[in-house]
């Protein structure tokens, strides 16, 4: 099923003509309203008028996460605050989040694209949608919510957490669609089983999962355990939020990028050169219609590849494969973005520790686990040979990490010399998750 028959099936030629028209507009607007773009274009000596074809896009400079941080909080906004109706934010490396703004029209576009996602998954207005994405600064909850309302379906704004209550509502309200991170879906299945609930006989029939990398194996597992069709959704707050790309129920292979609103490129993350379409590389997005927060050639750091073959669903929009990794060191733990440098910044504040640490990410059952190994300093141990003192240190670090980063980590004190010393490049992060099998 297709929500917007006209725009989602535009012949490539017409689609590209529309993209070019919108690209010219957004580049012009960004240049004249956002100081950052003017400076960055001027530095490379390019003018908005130089964009005459879609190929000319590659002449424009990239925008990076660092640029967004440098312009924290509102420096990238292209409209005055009086036109902004919503703010969202994602975590950043230095504890400063990346802030994004939306005008009325932006929220409208976002709702529209999320509605497209639902319809691509086979959802209709008669469905009841259990939305377990977190509501709040994270774009997941409200993004999905508005799309569901746009479609006219019934939304249960359950948000994340309180798993037992979620299972009760899954049984009693009988939602037919569930939206959350894939790991949370498996967690729900497991908890439900532990509570004696037959999770395969719930009324659920479709699941829309995203915000973290997951594999085909996980899809099969979720589909078996919940007896649903599980589909992949892609988005990131900088570009818009969930609903940048969505897998269709007919194809189930790659997510259609809504190309009437975004232009996607793949680049070599090392050189920044454009790669031939279909090659694996870093995805770069340009927003075509966003008013408040236009992004020109934004480097997502997500590694994937574009699928060029036409899809049997009839959409003409290009597809992207599952995200296969990151070109930076960002970790996604239970849907939360974390950079090792954030953890490091917290640890370096703790004077009872040596400046060595290791981060171990794993998946136990269906949940990501984060373990942080640290060494207690000689001077601290010299005054504290008691278990309770060391354990309270562990708890204090754990609390700091929870407070600053929003994830629960296991903090483990280890013997000195267990942790690799930095000789050039220390291996600070060990990711044992096997997601891309």
């Amino acid at each position, binding site marked *: 099923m297709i929500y917007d028959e006209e725009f989602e099936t535009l012949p490539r030629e017409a689609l590209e003509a529309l993209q070019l028209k919108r690209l010219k507009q957004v580049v012009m607007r960004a240049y004249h309203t956002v100081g950052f773009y003017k400076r960055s274009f001027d530095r490379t000596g390019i003018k908005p008028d130089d964009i005459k074809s879609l190929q000319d896009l590659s002449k424009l400079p990239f925008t990076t996460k660092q640029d967004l941080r440098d312009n924290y909080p509102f420096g990238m906004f292209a409209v005055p605050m009086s036109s902004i109706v919503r703010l969202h934010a994602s975590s950043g490396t230095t504890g400063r989040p990346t802030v994004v703004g939306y005008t009325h029209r932006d929220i409208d576009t976002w709702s529209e694209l999320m509605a497209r996602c639902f319809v691509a998954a086979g959802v209709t207005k008669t469905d009841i949608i259990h939305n377990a994405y977190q509501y709040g600064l994270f774009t997941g909850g409200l993004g999905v919510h508005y799309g569901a309302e746009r479609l006219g379906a019934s939304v249960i704004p359950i948000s994340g957490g309180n798993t037992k209550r979620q299972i009760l509502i899954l049984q009693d309200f009988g939602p037919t669609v569930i939206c959350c991170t894939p790991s949370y879906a498996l967690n729900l299945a497991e908890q439900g089983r532990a509570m004696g609930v037959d999770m395969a006989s719930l009324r659920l029939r479709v699941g829309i999962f995203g915000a973290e990398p997951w594999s085909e194996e996980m899809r099969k597992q979720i589909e078996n355990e919940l007896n649903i069709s599980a589909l992949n959704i892609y988005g990131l707050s900088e570009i818009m939020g969930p609903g940048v790309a969505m897998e269709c129920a007919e194809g189930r292979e790659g997510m259609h990028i809504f190309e009437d609103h975004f232009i996607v490129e793949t680049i070599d993350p090392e050189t920044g050169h454009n790669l031939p379409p279909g090659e694996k590389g870093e995805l770069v997005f340009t927003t075509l219609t966003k008013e408040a927060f236009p992004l020109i050639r934004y480097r997502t750091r997500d590694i994937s590849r574009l699928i060029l073959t036409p899809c049997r669903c009839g959409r003409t929009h290009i597809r992207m494969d599952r995200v296969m990794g990151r070109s930076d060191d960002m970790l996604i733990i239970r849907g939360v973005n974390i950079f090792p440098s954030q953890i490091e910044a917290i640890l370096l504040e703790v004077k009872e520790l040596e400046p060595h640490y290791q981060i171990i990410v794993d998946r136990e059952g269906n949940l990501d686990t984060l373990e942080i190994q640290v*060494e*207690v300093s*000689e001077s601290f*141990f*010299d*005054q*504290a*040979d*008691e*278990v309770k003192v*060391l*354990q309270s240190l*562990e708890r204090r670090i754990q609390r700091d990490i929870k407070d600053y980063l929003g994830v629960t980590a296991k903090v*483990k*004190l*280890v*013997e*000195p*010399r*267990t942790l690799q010393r930095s000789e050039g490049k220390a291996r600070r992060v060990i990711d044992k998750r096997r997601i891309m099998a």
Partner: protein
Amino acid sequence: MKVEQLSVFIENRPGGLEEVTRILKEGNINIRTLSLADTSDFGILRLIVNDVNKASQLLKENGFRVSRTQVVAVEVPDRPGGLHSILEVLARANINVEYLYAFVERSGENAVIIFRFDDVDKAIDLLERHHFTILKGEKLYSL
């Protein structure tokens, strides 16, 4: 009147303890008594040895976290109520015991209880006033 105890931080994993004892063996260090406090992740091995300085140095050289703590060794007759007689006095004086461990002397007549107190001097003072036998460090190291 105080005894020096070595505390060694060890991870809770197979072979963790063995490394410590091997280093001590190779350094010809004799362990008088010991105790191990454990959690799921780590443990603290507490030792009374015949040569505190050497043992501490050897362990540190091998990368272990070692601390030296003042403890009190009290000798009591090895019979029912022996330990209780000490704890009774401590409880009445409101002195907290952080941890303790014990061993029986070679003669078999006396037991030695190793105490860790928050306030070591106050505890020693109290125990002496109640005529308990407090062992000197040198005596214990060379038992």
